[in-house]
């Protein structure tokens, strides 16, 4: 997903490249429901629908925000920090090819939008089982405009980080670090679940966790493979690395589980796969398949131990967004600076004689993390001035499905009595 400014003459459409970008967009859009199941399986059944809705709603709210102004801020002509309003409401976005490649402009806008949608949804993992739904909706709406769009500009939209030479193939900084830092801030501002650290809060349906994982991996082929914006060798490389790296992470994670816990857990395997996917994201089109496997194996370690440790801290990042996406994203973003190779489409990294790249990568990590932290904090504080972010404790105890949505995920209708029409 290399950046570009709007180019001059229209580029003719290539059917093959367009076919792949169409499919990739659909695949990335599937990841948001998939995330809902990954997250939803990990919460208690009384909060299942709320957790699912935190993902599904992003498909509505963030899509509208993106079409209205987000895409324009990220990719319309403008400066190194922000695009202009030239493409607000997708004005001037047609079906011709352009600087992004021989694919319709509108499709490119939708593809980029699919990234904004899932990034916002990722944050929800840190505030599940307690945050009120209305403020959450406002938050992701504003966040996608005020945080996601600018960072996307910097890295992919012709902004300063891209110009600096930071490599981020499919969103290590823009998507994962960005969302993960926002998640930590959100967990701190919203506060812990009332019974966090005291009661055992267990996943109500690990099958759904694995269903989500399977669909996430499937969608991720469009996330990384599609970021080549064409059906070419780079797409193939990114695709294959998206298979190899998480496979290596999974093997590594299972070995860690086997040696440390004597049990290879299913939740662990699902987590390992996601961590591997996150790790390879910034690197997918820049490193060799062998490097991808090495990166996949390495990325397991920080996340594995962070996840073991986190529940003993007071930070109720409930579904470990930071440990998985933050640490995975940071490790991946830095390892690009180590493993990248010109021969495979990137620039040379540390291993190939260019230690400077590692430094550039670190700048990108720090810059996006710092901005995300600050802006997220401001947004949440702003919202909390208008309306409380949580429900009273006894309502939280009943579960957000009942209290926020007036529904139960699983019911046999025992003792439910029809209310006559109003």
């Amino acid at each position, binding site marked *: 997903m290399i950046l570009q400014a709007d180019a001059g003459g229209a580029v003719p459409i290539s059917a093959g490249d367009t076919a792949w970008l169409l499919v990739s967009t659909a695949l990335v859009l599937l990841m948001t429901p998939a995330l809902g199941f990954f997250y939803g399986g990990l919460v208690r059944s009384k909060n299942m629908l709320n957790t699912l809705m935190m993902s599904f709603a992003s498909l509505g709210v963030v899509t509208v925000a993106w079409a209205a102004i987000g895409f324009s801020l990220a990719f319309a002509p403008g400066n190194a920090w922000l695009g202009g309003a030239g493409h607000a409401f997708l004005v001037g976005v047609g079906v011709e090819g352009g600087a992004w490649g021989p694919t319709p402009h509108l499709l490119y806008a939708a593809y980029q939008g699919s990234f904004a949608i899932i990034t916002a949804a990722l944050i929800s993992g840190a505030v599940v089982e307690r945050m009120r739904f209305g403020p959450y909706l406002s938050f992701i709406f504003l966040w996608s405009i005020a945080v996601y769009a600018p960072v996307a500009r910097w890295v992919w939209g012709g902004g300063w980080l891209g110009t600096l030479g930071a490599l981020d193939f499919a969103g290590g900084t823009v998507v994962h670090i960005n969302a993960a830092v926002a998640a930590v801030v959100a967990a701190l501002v919203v506060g812990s679940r009332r019974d966090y650290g005291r009661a055992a809060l267990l996943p109500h349906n690990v099958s759904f966790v694995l269903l989500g994982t399977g669909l996430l991996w499937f969608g991720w082929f469009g996330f990384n493979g599609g970021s080549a914006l064409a059906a070419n060798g780079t797409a193939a490389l990114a695709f294959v690395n998206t298979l190899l790296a998480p496979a290596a992470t999974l093997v590594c994670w299972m070995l860690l589980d086997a040696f440390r816990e004597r*049990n290879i857990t299913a939740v662990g395997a699902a987590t390992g796969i996601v961590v591997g996917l996150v790790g390879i994201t910034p690197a997918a089109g820049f490193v060799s398949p062998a490097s991808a496997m090495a990166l996949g194996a390495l990325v397991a370690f920080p996340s594995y131990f962070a996840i073991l440790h986190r529940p003993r801290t007071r930070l109720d990042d409930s579904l470990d967004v930071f440990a998985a996406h933050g640490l995975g994203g940071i490790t991946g973003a830095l390892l690009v600076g180590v493993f990248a190779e010109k021969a495979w489409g990137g620039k040379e990294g540390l291993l190939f004689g260019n230690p400077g790249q590692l430094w550039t990568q670190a700048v990108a990590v720090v810059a996006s993390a710092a901005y995300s932290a600050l802006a997220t904090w401001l947004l949440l504080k702003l919202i909390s001035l208008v309306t409380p972010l949580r429900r009273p404790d006894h309502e939280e105890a009943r579960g957000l499905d009942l209290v926020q949505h007036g529904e139960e995920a699983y019911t046999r209708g025992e003792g439910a009595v029809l209310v006559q029409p109003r």
Partner: protein
Amino acid sequence: MKLIIAIIRSERLNEVLEALYRAEVRGLTISPVRGHGGEVEQVETYRGTRVKVGLQDKMRLEIGVSEPFVEATVNAILESARTGEVGDGKVFVLPVESVYRIRTGERDEAAVTPQAPGAPV
């Protein structure tokens, strides 16, 4: 009239049902429960969260029988549910004041005596 409540291992259910059948018990009600007793606790791990689960899946049987059948019923359960390992469960015998068969309104003995559906009431 007595109500026999038995807590047994879920995996012995079929054996117990068969034994009860042979003991001519025709009506009973079961439900899945979880029990705590002398068994070792299971440790489960979900990411960094490690929990001790002190409850085991068991099956609960509830059988209303008239006096003459009590002993046979209890024995049938004791024999068929036993594995000899800790966790085999318990049988409670409770007094009952009256029993009704909803379909017919019959009381007590009659209410728990098997009866053909079309038979005169």
